[in-house]
Every structure is written in structure tokens, then in C-alpha cells.
């Protein structure tokens, strides 16, 4: 395995003169910990023998551009935790854009770290963060640029291990051919265990790669794809669909089911301690402080909410301290309190007040991603946005109360319109609304409910300002593993396209409404991989070999390349994305345990079809989803009562959910055309 390698910046430098935005390859962030390479070398005091494997070297990789990947908090957290260890060091790498990739291949320059610009083969592990299916080909491309065989089976002891973690890996099967190991769940503790196993193996001479994989497979939360044998049902007659039949461990070290890791107390992990400030423009370029992990709202389409349970809050005092110190250290004038639903943080009022008070000059802006859709959400926004009030974003997700009960996004009509009224009356000029289409049981009336809602928002806005602007942003729904909708057959591309056209036509005549939508073709490919199995390996490899990289970027997305790759593998998107799954069927990810009982998810799916909503379990009796009981932890929330103003579905009268509040004047024309 890796010998210590010297930096190769001098070889990279001439190439950087020829590419766009070279600043994304230099690192140099303010506050970045400098990895200590002297940790690698150890001299045996008795024998005088020099060893260069005293530290396990991690190359943390994000399979998209620096601008997208640099702000990723998970990667920054692991970067710090690993560099704090005496027996590990970590650097970072991102996908080189196509112009630099081409220069690198021509000049024979391998994938490099951006911290000290060392080649990828100077590291023992190449560890990817995967948060989107369409980045899978970038992963292969980066492994290849690293000079490592893309298939796990072709690697030997001298190659780095290729591992991954992140939300997409809850269904690791499409990548089973390429990944040596996958970390399920929170990575903070798992990286320590992996470091120790790899470190011992290196110390013992780094001989047998299978032995290393066997040991890795025995670590809690670490899934080694090669340790499992998958069988398929077989097609007994023409037209039969072949699905996964059984998944069995091949090695005694590997458990039958790999359960995710969960850190119980966020207060013990105040990371990143030193969030780095990039020198060039990136997305979310601001201080980010994670206020809690997990969510129990129970939105049925939301994989993040399901797989990150239970709720674990950071103590409000720690949040305030991380904000104050972080702002002073970074020089940022913007801080985001991050979580899946920040207004639900029980310390939100206290923390926001403290931050606003400490900002004596009034130049600080506080972002609250995922604002709650009610007047309380706007109240908090008003507190933090004293000066400029341009736009507020809400995510009602569906246009009718019936549909919102199906998806369990229990926002009543009066909550939404109350929020919108509150926003326009307090000086905001633009409201942005996020929706999904292609949801289970969705009818055209539900789809057109989105248009009706947007028009009602304009009506409300006109009472306060002359030219209110409403932006409607619609994405095609992609069912995800470990959600109640994992059995649902995704809408076809044609159907999604039809629904979007329906909405576009309905909204065309309203000059105050801007309409945006996600590429429905990309949703199809995402859907195929979201719930696919190991047979997708050759599809990913063939699409990559045919040049499909940066598929998240609409200008580079190539549907035809994917369709050709599916055809060559004898698979179709009909089977992978559009097919409803059977209750009896073995799902490809059933040997992974995300904490949720399968019978809970099935019951929740049945409730969805019955249009029954479930209030948030933080403040109502337990539904026994499995997330707390299985790990012996409880929700860690500071307050036993729901946040001020009630909470989506909790302690509210759901019978009134579909009633239009008085703030919406009964419109003469609702804009809904049959």
C-alpha cells in the first residue's frame, strides 16, 4: 500500500494556467487544519527500523466540484476528527472539472489532494461522501484518475481502499462492485474504528486484502459488499421480472444485517471546531452550525428525515457559543442554523435572540434553512432579517390538504396562508414555494392545487404590496429506500412531464407567478438508482466509460447514454423506477438496518393510501418506528412541549386542515381549469 509521496503541485501548476477557475484546486482555506505528515513516520527505538505507516492516511473525497463539495459539513467534520488523532491524517479532494481532467490525463497527473497536493496513491483510503445518485459516475472517474482499478475485485493490497458514506449509501447496492466498504449512518465514531483496523493491518505488513475486508465487515455499521452473496428470483416465464431473492453473508465475520451507527449526544461532537473559509466562491458560503440531527415530522417522501432518527439536539448554549466563536474566527457575516427543520429546534428562540443581540453593528444575517410554514416561522425570520427582506421560502410540498395528508406534511391551509400574509405584511416582496409532483395517489386536482395555492398567495400579497412575486418550484418525486414510499412505482417521465405542463399552462397567465421545474429526465435516472440492486454496476460503469460525468449538471446530463447503458445490461427503467414493489418482495437493501422497522414503514404506507396523517412523535405517543428502541436512545430534546405556536400537526385541529382561512378572499376565479 501507499508509500509517502511528495507533493506534486509543481506538475499541476502549468495545467492550472490553462483551466477555468483554477482557485478551486488550490485549497489554502483560512482555518483549515494542516495535515501533519510527520505522523506517518516512526522509528523503532530498539531496532532503528523506520516505518512509514504509523498513521492511516485518509483522502476524503466529494464526487462533484469544489464549489459544491467544499461546504459539505460531514466531510469537514471527519477531516478534523481524523487529523486530531495521532494515528491518522486526512486530506480532501473534489472532482476536477472536465477541462482539468483532460489536461491531467494528457500530462499523466493523477487525482490529487487539495491540502498539500499529494497524489491519491499516497493515501490508504479514498473515502467518498455520496449525497446524490447522479454523482456515481464521478466516483468511478475519480477512482480511475487516482490510478486505482474501478472494480473492487480488481484491486490488490497496494491499492487504497475505496469506501463511502452519506445518505445515498443507505442503498449501497448499485455501487457494490466498486466500493470496498460502506459506512452506514453517523461517521464520527466509525472512522475511528476503521482507522484502527486499517492501522493494525498496515502494521502487520499489509499483505492479504481479503483479510482486511473481513475485519472491516465485523465493525459495527460497516458494510462490505464483497462479504455478501445475492441471489435473484429468476424469470420462470417470459415477461417475468427478476428481483432480489436472498442476500446472505459469505464470511463468518459479516453480520446478516448491518445496522447504522448513531451518535447519541451531539454535545460531545462540537464539530467542525474550525470551519474553514474558502478563498473562492462556493455554495452555502457562510458559517454553518448544526443545531440538531434527525427529524420526526414523518414526511413520508423524505428519506433524510427517516434515516437520521432519532432527534438529537445540540444544547442551545453550545449552539450560541459555536456561532459567536465561529463568526469571530471566520469573519463571515452570515450564519446558518442547519438541521432538517430548524424552527423545530427547541432552543431556536433563545439562540436567535442571543445572536441578534450580539450583532451590535446590524450587519449579520442569519439563515434558517427549511423555514416552518406558519406564522411562527415568519416571526423568527422577521427577528433575524431586520434590514433586507427580499424573499422567503416555504415548502408546502403539495397543493391540497388531501395530498398533504398522504405525504404527512400536515400543513393546514390556514398555516400556509397565515405565513404568507405575515410575510407580505412585514415587508417581504417575494415568496418561493417548493412542491413535489408525481406523489402517490396524486390526481390532476392535486397537481392543479399548486397553481391555486400560488394564485391565492398573489391575492394575499396584493393587499400589502403592489407587485408581489411568487415563485413556484416543482420537482418530480423519486421514491427512496427506508421511507413508506419505497414500495411506490415512480411516475413515468411522460406522466411527470404532463403534470408539469398542466401546471405551466395553469400559471402562464399570471404575471406574478414564476414557474420552475426540475428536469424530469434526470428524475428517471435518479429513480432507477435510488431503489436499484447490484445489477446496476455494469450500467454505471458503461455510462462512465461513455463519458457520462457531472450528470448533476443539466448541461452535461445525457439521458441517451443512460438508456443505452440500461439496454446493454438488459435492464429497463420501467422495472427499476416505475414498478410498484410487492409487500412480499425482498428489497435490495433489506440487509441494511436504518433503524426503521419494515412493518412500521409498511403500515405508514397503508396509512398514506388511507390519507391518514401522523403527528410528530416528539410530543405524542411513540409509533414504534424502531429508531429509538433499537439503539436504546431517546429523542434528545430540551423541551417536553412543542415549540411556540404549535407544530405542524401537533396539538392542532386537523379536521380544519383543508379549510381556506378568511385571509384568502373567496376568489372569483381560482385559476383552476378543469
Amino acid at each position, binding site marked *: 500500500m501507499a508509500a509517502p509521496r511528495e507533493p506534486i*503541485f509543481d506538475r499541476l501548476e*502549468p495545467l*492550472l*494556467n490553462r483551466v477555468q*477557475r*483554477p*482557485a478551486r*484546486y*488550490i*485549497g*489554502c*482555506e*483560512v482555518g483549515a487544519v494542516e495535515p501533519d505528515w510527520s505522523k506517518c513516520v516512526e522509528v523503532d527505538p530498539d531496532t532503528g527500523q523506520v516505518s512509514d505507516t504509523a498513521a492511516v492516511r485518509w483522502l476524503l473525497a466529494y464526487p462533484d466540484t469544489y464549489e459544491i463539495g467544499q461546504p459539505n459539513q460531514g466531510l469537514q467534520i471527519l477531516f478534523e476528527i481524523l487529523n486530531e488523532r495521532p494515528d491518522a491524517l486526512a486530506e480532501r479532494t473534489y472532482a476536477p472539472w472536465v477541462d482539468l481532467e483532460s489536461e491531467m490525463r494528457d500530462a499523466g497527473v493523477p487525482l490529487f489532494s487539495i491540502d498539500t497536493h499529494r497524489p491519491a496513491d499516497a493515501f490508504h483510503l479514498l473515502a467518498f461522501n455520496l449525497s446524490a445518485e447522479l454523482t456515481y459516475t464521478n466516483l468511478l472517474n475519480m477512482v480511475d484518475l487516482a490510478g486505482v482499478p474501478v472494480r473492487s475485485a480488481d484491486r490488490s493490497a497496494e491499492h487504497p481502499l475505496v469506501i463511502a458514506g452519506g445518505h445515498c449509501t443507505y442503498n449501497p447496492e448499485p455501487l457494490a462492485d466498486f466500493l470496498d466498504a460502506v459506512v452506514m449512518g453517523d461517521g464520527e465514531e466509525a472512522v475511528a474504528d476503521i482507522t484502527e483496523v486499517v492501522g493494525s493491518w498496515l502494521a502487520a505488513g499489509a499483505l492479504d486484502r481479503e483479510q482486511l475486508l473481513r475485519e472491516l465487515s465485523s465493525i459495527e455499521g460497516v458494510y462490505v459488499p464483497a462479504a455478501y452473496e445475492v441471489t435473484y428470483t429468476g424469470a420462470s416465464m417470459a415477461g417475468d421480472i427478476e428481483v432480489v431473492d436472498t442476500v446472505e453473508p459469505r464470511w463468518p465475520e459479516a453480520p446478516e444485517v448491518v445496522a447504522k451507527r448513531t451518535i447519541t449526544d451531539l454535545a460531545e461532537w462540537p464539530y467542525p471546531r474550525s470551519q474553514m*473559509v474558502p*478563498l*473562492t*466562491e462556493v455554495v452555502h458560503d457562510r458559517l454553518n452550525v448544526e443545531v440538531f440531527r434527525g427529524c420526526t415530522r414523518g414526511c413520508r417522501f423524505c428519506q433524510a428525515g427517516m434515516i437520521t432518527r432519532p432527534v438529537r439536539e445540540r444544547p442551545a448554549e453550545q449552539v450560541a457559543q459555536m456561532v459567536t466563536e465561529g463568526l*469571530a*474566527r*471566520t*469573519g*463571515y*457575516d452570515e450564519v446558518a442554523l442547519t438541521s432538517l427543520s430548524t424552527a423545530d429546534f427547541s432552543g431556536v428562540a433563545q439562540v436567535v435572540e442571543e445572536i441578534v443581540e450580539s450583532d451590535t453593528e446590524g*450587519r449579520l444575517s442569519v439563515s434558517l434553512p427549511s423555514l416552518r410554514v406558519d406564522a411562527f416561522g415568519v416571526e423568527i425570520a422577521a427577528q433575524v432579517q431586520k434590514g*433586507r427582506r427580499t424573499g422567503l421560502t416555504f415548502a408546502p410540498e403539495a397543493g391540497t390538504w388531501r395530498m398533504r395528508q398522504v405525504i404527512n406534511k400536515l400543513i393546514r391551509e390556514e398555516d400556509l396562508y397565515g405565513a404568507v400574509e405575515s410575510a407580505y405584511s412585514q415587508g417581504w416582496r417575494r415568496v418561493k414555494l417548493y412542491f413535489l409532483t408525481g406523489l402517490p395517489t396524486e390526481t390532476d386536482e392535486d397537481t392543479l392545487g399548486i397553481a391555486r395555492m400560488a394564485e391565492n398567495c398573489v391575492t394575499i400579497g396584493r393587499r400589502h404590496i403592489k407587485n408581489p412575486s411568487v415563485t413556484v418550484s416543482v420537482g418530480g418525486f423519486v421514491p427512496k429506500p427506508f421511507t413508506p414510499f419505497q414500495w411506490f412505482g415512480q411516475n413515468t417521465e411522460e406522466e411527470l412531464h404532463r403534470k408539469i405542463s398542466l401546471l405551466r399552462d395553469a400559471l402562464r397567465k399570471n404575471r406574478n407567478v414564476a414557474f420552475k421545474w426540475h428536469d424530469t429526465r434526470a428524475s428517471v435516472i435518479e429513480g432507477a438508482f435510488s431503489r436499484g440492486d447490484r445489477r446496476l454496476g455494469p450500467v454505471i460503469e458503461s455510462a462512465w466509460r461513455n463519458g457520462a460525468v457531472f450528470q448533476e449538471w443539466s448541461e452535461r446530463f445525457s439521458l441517451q447514454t443512460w438508456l443505452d447503458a440500461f439496454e446493454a445490461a438488459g435492464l429497463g427503467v420501467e422495472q427499476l423506477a416505475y414498478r410498484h414493489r410487492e409487500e412480499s418482495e425482498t428489497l435490495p437493501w433489506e440487509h441494511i438496518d436504518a433503524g426503521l422497522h419494515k412493518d412500521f414503514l409498511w403500515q405508514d404506507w397503508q396509512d398514506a393510501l388511507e390519507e391518514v396523517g401522523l403527528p410528530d412523535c416528539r410530543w405524542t405517543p411513540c409509533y414504534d418506528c424502531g429508531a429509538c428502541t433499537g439503539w436504546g436512545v431517546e429523542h434528545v430534546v430540551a423541551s417536553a412541549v412543542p415549540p411556540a405556536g404549535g407544530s405542524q400537526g401537533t396539538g392542532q385541529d386537523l379536521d380544519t386542515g383543508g379549510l381556506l382561512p378568511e385571509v384568502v378572499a373567496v376568489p372569483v376565479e381560482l385559476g383552476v381549469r378543469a
Partner: protein
Amino acid sequence: MTDTPAKRIRVRYSVSGKVRFLSHRDVARVTERAIRRAGVPVAYTQGYSPRPKMQYGLALSTGYESTGEYIDIYLDPEREGMVDPVEIAVALDACMPRGLDVLAASLVDSTEGSLQDSVESTGWEVQVAADDPAATELPGRVEALMGADHHEIEIVRKGKPVREDLRPLVFDLVLKVPASAGGDGGAEPLLLMAELGTKPRSIRPSELLGALGVSEPVKVRRTHQWTNRDGNRGEPLGLEVPSQRTELCAI
């Protein structure tokens, strides 16, 4: 609002190493954040979206190094904090990323023109590899260019190719050929030293290099920005101005 005029502090800094790949905008944003971290009591612009009140000199192209970059920072007289230029230079330098180094700082008189206006020419050092395809021709080309009255080049303006005379804006051009230069890869690079005019428009080093047939210089460094005060040639801020970073001032 106040009647006390804002103090203007002029800072000279260098760009070297990896950070030379930052764009002009990147450097501006990095400096703003460094000013906040350092606690410099900078004034803010009025208006909808207040920004720290700063003025930049002529933009340095991405990829070039410099030992003569400038920035004017306006201090808010109503804010408490440091006002001594040297103290500001030291605090700011400690907060700038490696490679962006503060060399000197001084209070600038309110009558002094803006950086953009007062600079009339810039000095450059360009390293050309000994094995560059143009290396052997370079002495002759430099001589020919300096000996000519006109040298037209084609540039693209508003999407259209136009011809422009480069020669009047090449104030000086000297080539130093190291004794060892012989074309093999290990040889020392050739050094071009140029002074290029900035008015009516700044000549880019790449335009000069294009005229000399050099497409990929090893390194380009701006060494000076020259002003003209009543016929006296000078710099916006000389390195003789007191600075804590004596080791850097010795460049």
C-alpha cells in the same frame, strides 16, 4: 452619519504561491473577511446592501504573482479600534491567507487620487522557460519591437476583432538571458522585464507576450505600479513606509 471625514489607509501587499490562482474578486472577498477577523474599524457603504468601504487598484490577472498590489481601506471615525497604519498592517497580515502578505501601510491624504486614476504604468517580470519554442528568437524579437515605432496587434473588443498599436504603451522592455541558457530542460529561465502603460488602457502582459510569440510563460509577476505626481515618478506606497514585516520588505 458624521461630518468627520473617513481616514483612508493604503495597504501594499504581495501575491505569491498557490493563491496566485485566485481571481481579483476572490482576493477582494478574502480581504473583506480578513478585515472583519482582524477587527479593523472599516467604514461601510450606505445603501441597501452595505459593504466594507474599500477601493482596489488595477486588477491582477488570475495566475500572476505580484509584489506591488494596493488597496485603500476607509475607516469609520465613529467606530472604536485601531487607527495606526502599522498596527492595522500587522493585524491584517495575521488574518490574510498564506501568500497574500501585507508589506506596508500608510495613512493617505484625502486629496490623493484613487489608485485606479493615479497609476500610469506597471512593472513586470516574466520568466520564459529556456526550452520555450520562442526562446531562441526572443532577443531578436525584443530588439525589433523596441526599435519599431508601431507594432499592431489584434485584440477582441465587444466580440469584434480590432487592430491596435501596442508599441506606444511598451515604455520599457529588457531581456536577460542567463549564461547557462542553451535549450535543455534544466536550464535557468529567461527573464523579461517590462514597463507597460495603463492609459488610455492597461496593456496586458499576455498581449505583450503574444506579440513576442510566448504562449506559456513560466511565471508572471507584477513588481511595481508607477504613479506620476507633478512629473515625479513614484509608487502609491513605497516599501520605505514603516512595516513590521521587514523580512518581506527586503524583496
